[in-house]
């Protein structure tokens, strides 16, 4: 099947936002830089922007005073339907755990990273983006057998060019995070490469959706610590107490022709993926089917995720309070959790289009919760 074209022209802001968001640092637990970048980007697009004690960033758009607003009856009387849009700011990365006498940095992994993607990668360490390299023995000096098994992460180190602990400690502290030094680039026919589409692509879709206004109360929640156990989202959902949540995510995509169909998860370039069931959530399937019908009617390409592996913030959100209906719209992301990930910009545009379509129709009352 060919690459599908976006249903609507993509907003001009897309590319700079994607670049800014994916290149910002924000390893789980240390989302300071990405939070600042997101906040700067959405300034003026919400009635209130605030962060909470765990580090989540919230942007609230009150329902418009004029025009049709969808309401619900709560204990405090009639109020606008409250929809939370959630995307996580954190990314998988590394954390300095020990600085050796030799000036080399021993590190731990934050989030699910395959050891095999680490060796020989360029990284940035700490707030000041100190360049470093993950080192290993050169092939010339290896013995037979060395290359037959992957090097475990705890036998690797980050080399920042320091020759002693004293020298290294002038630049780096234990606990500093490290990110892959990958630049955002557009490649191929309409694809982009970057280090953290999971889930900065979701953050970008969310940020850009705030340009619009909907007949709803919309709370954008940029969450923290998803990659280490959906932690920020749990707090966010409890605090926001929405009637519905839409999670915007990057998901696995392994659609190479040599893989069996039922293990590919998603197709690249065939539209955003709707989740029916994953490792942590059974989606409200009737609502997902309504969304699918809506997308079909408006000719927005979409697909269902075809494995039940993986999970996202929906896993903790939908069990919050007395239960919160939660949908996930995911971008197929090749080489997810690796230093260079790939998305289709068509999928990106179609995810944006699908999200605004859902919000418009939610406001109109077309979707039954």
């Amino acid at each position: 099947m060919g690459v599908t074209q976006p249903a609507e022209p993509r907003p001009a802001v897309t590319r700079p936002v994607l670049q800014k968001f994916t290149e910002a640092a924000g390893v789980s637990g240390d989302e300071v830089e990405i939070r600042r970048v997101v906040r700067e980007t959405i300034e003026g697009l919400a009635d209130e922007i605030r962060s909470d004690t765990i580090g989540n960033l919230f942007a609230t758009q009150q329902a418009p005073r004029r025009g049709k607003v969808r309401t619900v009856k709560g204990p405090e009387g009639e109020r606008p339907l409250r929809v939370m849009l959630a995307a996580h700011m954190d990314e998988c990365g590394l954390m300095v755990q020990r600085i050796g006498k030799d000036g080399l940095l021993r590190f731990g992994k934050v989030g699910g990273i395959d050891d095999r993607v680490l060796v020989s990668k360029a990284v940035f360490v700490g707030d000041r983006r100190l360049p470093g390299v993950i080192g290993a023995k050169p092939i010339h000096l290896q013995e037979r057998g060395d290359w037959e098994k992957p090097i475990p992460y705890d036998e690797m180190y980050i080399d920042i060019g320091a020759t002693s602990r004293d020298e290294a400690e002038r630049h780096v502290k234990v606990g500093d995070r490290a990110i892959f030094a990958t630049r955002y680039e557009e490649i191929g026919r309409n694809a982009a490469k970057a280090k953290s589409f999971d889930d900065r692509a979701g953050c970008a879709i969310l940020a850009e959706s705030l340009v619009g206004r909907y007949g709803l109360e919309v709370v954008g929640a940029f969450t923290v610590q998803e990659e280490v156990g959906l932690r920020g989202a749990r707090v966010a959902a409890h605090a926001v107490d929405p009637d519905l949540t839409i999670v915007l995510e990057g998901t696995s995509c392994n659609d190479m022709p040599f893989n069996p169909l039922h293990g590919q998860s998603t197709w690249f370039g065939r539209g955003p993926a709707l989740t029916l069931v994953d490792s942590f959530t059974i989606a409200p399937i009737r609502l997902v089917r309504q969304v699918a019908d809506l997308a079909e009617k408006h000719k927005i390409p979409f697909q269902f995720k075809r494995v039940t592996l993986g999970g996202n913030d929906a896993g903790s959100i939908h069990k919050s309070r007395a239960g919160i209906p939660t949908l996930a719209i995911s971008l197929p992301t090749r080489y997810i959790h690796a230093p260079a990930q790939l998305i289709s910009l068509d999928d990106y545009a179609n995810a944006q289009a699908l999200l605004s379509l859902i919000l418009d129709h939610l406001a109109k009352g077309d979707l039954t919760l």
Partner: protein
Amino acid sequence: MKDMLLKLAEATGPSGSEDAVRELVKKELAGLAEDVRVDAMGNLLARTGPRGRASKGGHKVLLMAHLDEVGLVVTNVEKNGFLRFSPMGRLDPHVCLGQRIRFTGGALGVIDAEPVEKPGDLKIDKLFIDIGAASEEEARKTVRPGDMAAFDRAPAVLGHRVTGRAVGSRGAAAVLLQTLRGLRATPHEVLVAFTVQKEVGSRGARPAAFGVDPDLALVLDATATGDTPEARRMEVSLGKGPAIKVQDQSGMAYPALRRALAAAAAKAGKSVQYEVLETAGSELGVVQLSHGGIPASGLSIPTRYRFGPTEVVDVEDLEGAVAVLTQFLKDPVDLSF
């Protein structure tokens, strides 16, 4: 009791697709409880007895049993009309092989497998479902990705026992309904929750407990037994009475509730066992962590061959559970340590 169990065990309700079981239980609840409602997760909630803590020594008591059962969800419809699927809960690929399954929409399917070299290679992704369709197009007319199914196996009477799929947990639900049916005077506000999505990680129980906000909770569910040939050691047998929950993989029971259940059993003249379940968890773990912490224990139904199509329970254990629970609800509960 037996009839109620047979009725509940007929309905198909894999995790996330519990509608048929919920409707059945809802009908049974009519006249037994009030304020019947379904929450955002799909949990069926109701109440009975005096409101709040009006009477002396009365508590808000939550009784919980889950509606769902182990099943599967369709992930792919292939070109030739075969379906691929993922497990919902503990689905053993070897048990799946050669089974007939029923979708919640009513359609039937049979499970078979790609050739594998050794039995150990038989994983879920080697299995497929045949629904009698000759092409993808034909298959999609009946089944879509996201549709769910469970083993197609009607319950049957096996001496004074009952066999079938999910008879353990449906037995627990039947115990809850029968207890409500016989409930006369109680000082407690009795809140009931028939929950969803237990088999995939007790997902319905957390929102249910949060929404109900009880003073104490009892989880009714199936538990394993150690009484079959060469079974893993476990001090629970079929036919020796319901098991008072002490501990499972999800958590530890509140000691005062264990004592209260034992006292109720003694008063009712019923034998009970004690459950230390090392191979599975229950809804106990999430219920007891709701709000500021909720004292919780449970009464479990000894169940053989759990999660398969041939579970076996003893009707006397179910009747014993009703008697113990009924006695428990008659008296005030001392929650002090």
